């Protein structure tokens, strides 16, 4: 995928927020550079609160960078865009709509027949057949995340921005969601930028893991995960990549250092 065209291009990006005291500025991002190719699956990891989500919100168009540039598909990001859909950490599924209404949300301008066809297709793809008329409150957390992913796919987004989408799920559900996400990604060839604080998750999913430093965050290192899918979680390649990222983030897994025990 090296020779594929660049989808996302972040150059020398800075971001600071006004602090609690007047005139004070809190620097969140400093000199961030990031490239994502079309069809690539990139995970962004880093210590909690480092600014991973801020970076994602900048390329998603919800926050404006203080300095530098963020371009998607060749043009500067200027607000949210239906071609690039965010999958939220909290539940972005509309609780007042049924599963199929949620999934069809981005297709309101299309003909009813076209909409129905796409909705049915993606309900099948995310494994929610039989739950078309259900309301989100009747679904489990994992199923709600599936609705949100299907909603993004149905709207024919080129890029999915996922902000810790599986963070609230239990361990087994999370494993299943990861496998399904990879299957969907392979079928749909979307570009995915996936923010997580879970290093194992990043190594299981990504083509490339971008490791960010503590705040003010910058890209500490990029680790290419060149392993075949489905990934063997006991293979030396997997364990090596995982340990390397732990090391970059300043944690010694074997020595039982501080930080995320997973």
């Amino acid at each position: 995928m090296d020779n594929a065209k660049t989808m996302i291009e972040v150059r020398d990006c800075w971001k600071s927020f006004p602090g609690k005291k007047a005139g004070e500025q809190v620097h969140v991002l400093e000199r961030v550079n990031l490239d994502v190719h079309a069809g690539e699956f990139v995970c962004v990891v880093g210590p909690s609160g480092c600014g991973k989500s801020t970076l994602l919100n900048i390329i998603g168009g919800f926050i404006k960078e203080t300095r530098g540039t963020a371009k998607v598909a060749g043009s500067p990001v200027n607000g949210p865009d239906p071609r690039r859909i965010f999958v939220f950490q909290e539940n972005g599924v509309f609780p007042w709509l049924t599963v199929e209404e949620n999934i069809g949300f981005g297709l309101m301008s299309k003909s009813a027949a076209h909409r129905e066809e796409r909705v049915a297709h993606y309900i099948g793809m995310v494994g929610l057949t039989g739950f078309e008329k259900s309301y989100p409150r009747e679904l489990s957390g994992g199923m709600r995340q599936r609705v949100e992913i299907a909603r993004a796919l149905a709207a024919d987004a080129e890029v999915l921005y996922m902000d810790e989408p599986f963070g609230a799920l239990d361990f087994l559900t999370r494993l299943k969601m990861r496998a399904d996400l990879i299957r969907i990604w392979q079928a749909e060839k979307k570009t995915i930028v996936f923010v997580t604080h879970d290093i194992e998750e990043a190594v299981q999913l990504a083509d490339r893991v971008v490791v960010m430093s503590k705040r003010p965050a910058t890209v500490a290192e990029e680790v290419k995960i060149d392993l075949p899918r489905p990934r063997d979680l006991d293979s030396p390649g997997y364990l090596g990549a995982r340990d390397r990222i732990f090391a970059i983030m300043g944690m010694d897994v074997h020595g039982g250092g501080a930080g995320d025990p997973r």
Partner: protein
Amino acid sequence: MPTKDCRGEKCPRESKPNVLKNPVNRFAPILLPAATAAIFLLIWHLLVRLSGSDLFPTPLDVARGIQELVEKGLLLKYIVASLFRVSWGFMLAVLVGVPLGLILGWFRPAFQALNPMIQILRPISPIAWIPVAILWFGIADSAPVFLIFLASVFPITVSSMAAVQNMQLVYLRAAQNFGVTGMQLFRRVIFPAALPQIITGIRIALGIAWLVVVAAEMIAVNSGLGYLIIDARNAGKRYDLVVAGMVMIGLIGLVLDLLIRRLERFDEVKWGYGQR
């Protein structure tokens, strides 16, 4: 909202806890309030008897008073009249209050311009408006309708406004992400997201509207449950009818609340009321 996660993910629709198993439980929702009411009536009766007063009526006097009203055909007339005024005043308040609240909640300049005015008008008791209502509307049905409108429009406006202001940001962002803007955003996202809280406000406002009916009908309208009370005071020693009016107002208030609570059961808003 707590999430119930089902292993293997095919989570069946949540079933309600089965309270019907135990026969005692099944009748408790009827028996307990009935027992409370019986005890209340008994104490009332005894207190009147003990006081030796022949002015304040016993529950039996009140029941006979209600029967008399039914026989004269007045009870139905008065209930209809009160419900008519409350219905119109309240519906107008909903039609004005909800859109106004949505606008105030969404457009900051509108909020800044109008909110202080609303907060000034809000605490004024409808009773204080009675002279104004008579001067503007005379004493036909329009004056009590106006008073009930005034009493209920502010709670509805304020709750709709707060509903929009408290809306979860994630819904807004998701909608903007899909390119939804303007009226579409209002119709498809802001309004449905605010609806559960709006309905709660409407429910409270209906209670207030019904509460105000007595005050509103103190104006010389010649029908209605509030009028019944005023009229019974004119009629000399008919305090049984005064209390009968109070009882009817209470009972109808209960029915109204039960009815409006049904709104909260609709699928579009059920999510907003937590687990029940």
